[in-house]
């Protein structure tokens, strides 16, 4: 009970901070859309997008803006050393991780709500033909990415050169998640949407999410002790 309550408190606190300025949300959304545009310049040839580009661009934009948001979120906890204050609370420490993770998921969910229509519109991608499967892919991929990202961003708070170390650690470990997301989405975008393939990738994502979240909950406590 304390566990869920603590996670909820941390989530609500982050939300209360965010509504004061909407800083992280607006910058993340803007960055995500810039990503899409930058990649559009690279992958649109003679007015048409390269095959499978839409799926790749969608997921790269999610990963890049996610990294940016992670850095900013934990910078907030570093300023005033509030992360230490959280760690000093008698609540189980993994609950803090879960709270932070939920916040990241909410943020990335909003970013995806912008990115998906944008990619669909700019690349004539039929992203909405199988909405449930797409939602499954997005959820699975986002949880996997954010689970690793939140743990690493939290542990890098007290490391030197954390800005550059976060992407260095995060991308190699989360590439399998991105592969699953991109291939699953690409399967949905084929002439005839390939539901079987998409479902299989969702299954793989669920397996990844389970491994990542379990490992993160397990290692959070020893990682946070200096």
């Amino acid at each position, binding site marked *: 009970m304390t566990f869920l309550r603590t996670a909820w408190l941390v989530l609500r606190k982050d939300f209360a901070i965010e509504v004061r300025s909407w800083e992280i949300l607006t910058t993340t959304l803007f960055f995500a859309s810039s990503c899409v545009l930058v990649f559009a310049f690279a992958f649109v040839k003679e007015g048409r997008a390269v095959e499978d580009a839409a799926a790749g661009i969608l997921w790269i934009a999610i990963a890049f803006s996610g990294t940016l948001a992670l850095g900013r979120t934990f910078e907030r906890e570093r300023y005033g050393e509030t992360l230490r204050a959280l760690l000093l609370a008698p609540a189980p420490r993994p609950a803090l991780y879960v709270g932070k993770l939920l916040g990241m998921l909410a943020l990335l969910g909003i970013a995806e709500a912008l990115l998906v229509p944008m990619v669909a519109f700019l690349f004539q991608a039929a992203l909405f033909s199988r909405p449930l499967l797409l939602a499954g892919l997005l959820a699975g991929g986002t949880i996997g990415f954010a689970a690793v990202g939140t743990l690493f961003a939290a542990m890098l708070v007290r*490391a030197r050169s954390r800005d550059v170390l976060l992407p260095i650690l995060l991308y*190699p470990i989360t590439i399998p998640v991105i592969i699953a997301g991109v291939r699953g989405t690409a399967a949905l975008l084929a002439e005839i949407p390939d539901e079987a393939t998409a479902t299989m990738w969702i299954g*793989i994502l669920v397996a990844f999410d389970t491994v990542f979240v379990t490992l993160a909950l397990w290692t959070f406590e020893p990682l946070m002790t200096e």
Partner: protein
Amino acid sequence: MRKAFGPLVVVGAALFVAAPYFIAQAPYESTMGLIQKIMYYHVPSWIAQYCAITVCGVASAIYLFKSHPVADRYAVSAAELVVLFGLMGLITGPLWARKAWGVWWQWDVRLTSALLMELIFVAYLLVRQYGGPGSEKLASATALFGTATGPFVYKSVDIWRTVHPKTTVVPTLPSSLGAPLALTSAAFVLLFVVLLTLRVNLAERQAALDEMYLALED
């Protein structure tokens, strides 16, 4: 391990000396000819890398939960060897591929997942190098995640690959090719053990030096 070190070096070296003879003796593989002999160095370097990954993952987990400095020494030594053997595999692979497949690089499952593993363990070394004090713990989390997700990485890349056109697959090997391969594999594993021992010894000396500095301050 220390006591067995001398014999290990001798046996390992003997295997390496014997290897060229057996490799030369082995018949040519029917479709690829001479170039296939890269296999005798290529495959064993992956086997050695898997050994290194296992050692690094286990040692990192022990260090993370027990904070035992010896475990950390094994973890960092094994991580360097993961990168070393990975590099051997990643260089010999394309050389083989250039001749056998006609291209340097294929997004083959083994190549891709090997590249990812290499990246993860380079990241491990980078964190230790630039993370500042306390980065050993952070690095051990990296190794733990890298090791634990290894099989999944392989699986996901495998499926990713099979969705795409297939490439030449190395056929199952007859025993005339297998015997030298077993020999070089054993040689590489021994090379790994020898290098690991030397590197751990270095880590111990470094720790002893740190200890001396600390004693000086006391």
